[in-house]
């Protein structure tokens, strides 16, 4: 495990926008897996520094703009 990125960026998904297209899985298999219905299960802990650039690529590649890189958790439950 390498050190988390200094800004504490986390990869998060807007489940309403997500259509299960799964390009995020291809670009960031380290943090994304699919559930049995084909929707991404995303690890939301702060990303290690070496994955931040990959995560940005995944964010840019999502066809519905459902992914977001953000320091704050969207919902604390």
């Amino acid at each position, binding site marked *: 495990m390498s050190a988390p990125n200094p800004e504490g960026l986390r990869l998060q998904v*807007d489940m309403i926008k997500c259509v299960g297209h799964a390009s995020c899985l291809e670009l960031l298999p380290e943090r994304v897996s699919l559930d049995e219905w084909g929707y991404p299960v995303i690890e939301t802990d702060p990303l290690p520094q070496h994955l931040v650039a990959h995560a940005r690529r995944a964010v840019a590649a999502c066809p519905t703009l459902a992914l977001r890189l953000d320091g704050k958790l*969207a919902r604390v439950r």
Partner: protein
Amino acid sequence: MTIMLERGARQGGQGRQGALPRLLAGGRKLGEHRATYGQIPLRRFSGEDGRRMLVRAITDAGLRGRGGAGFPTGRKMANVAAGAKRPVVIANGCESEPASRKDKMLMACAPHLVLDGAVLAAHAVGADRVYLCVERGTSIADRLERELAQRDDPVKWKLVRVPRRYVSSEESALVHLINDGDGRPLAAPPRPFEKGVGGRPTLVDNVETLAHVALIAAYGPGWFREVGTRNDPGSTLVTVGGAVARPNVYEIAPGMRLGEVLDAAGGAVEPIGAVLVGGYFGTWVPMPDGWGLPLTHDRTGPLGTSLGAGGIVALPAESCGLAETARVVRYLAEESAQQCGPCMFGLPAIATDLAAVAYGRCDPATRQRLSRRIAQVTRRGACRHPDGATRLATSALAAFAGDLETHMDGWTCTGVSRDPILPLPDRRHRDRGWK
């Protein structure tokens, strides 16, 4: 319709006595209400300093939301008041939970206490507008409209008739409905307290929470804390149903034991196998082991039981808790807003597995798949709807573990053929659309 009240209910661990009822003492007509409580104490809290004093009083009182999550109300008010734009208040009186009718009861018996509380909450955060949200298709909306017409308040009221759907009363769904006429939840961020109605910071409070705000403004935080526990002070409304002698709405003090609450409702009318606490986002508590469980808005006990919005249902030992749960989870699945994959596909799948378990078509593979699916769906929706449904399912698997074993061996109990105990709304009283 009368409200059954627990006078001087005992408090768990505190030993303090406070007179109950508090919420329902003042009468339904404006004149009666004013005779009991006087004018809204806006003068005492006038100006910027006054607003801050009021938020401070709510914080010091330790009031927590009565809509389910139990979030500290003072903290939420401070967050909303800190926003850049002028805030808005939503009074949430939808009470979509079928096992609860305390909000409807409160709005029928003490509407002006709720309305006073909403005016005070608006003042506390600096809002000039209150949206009063209630389920459509009931007489409550019309009655409230008549009561509103008699009042002269420093806020603009707007009565909103909300579609009769379980998730349309979730806070972001109310914001969505008011902004765009669509009663489905929204993804966060932004949360309503940051950016809600018209892009303004929006305080969403349950109507019972607001009634407590009115009482705290009138009598002070010290008075509020005379009942309840340190972490969960004040009184709270619960709806007790199922196999008890006097199913009704009761005002109790948090910290009261589950068995005492059942006794307050006249006691069990037949042997009780388990009690559902916290409505359909709640947990099953096996009886008689759970008799002494103190009920508060904090999670306690092995299953993380909390009062939630106060729905309590006593299930006879002769009934099948697995079948009851399967039926309610099916209902919750139907009530999904069908926006998020895990909720849209996961909840029906879980309901089907639960039915298989309950009706004796269960094998170890189904049982394992069920646990896997529950874990897969939890926390995966834009709103907490799936989390509530999976909490209920998880607690059923634990509370009825013994029954589960029997069902796994291919036996079904006679309980599955008994009439269901957990209430569900009649199809005719459920809306299909979201407008």
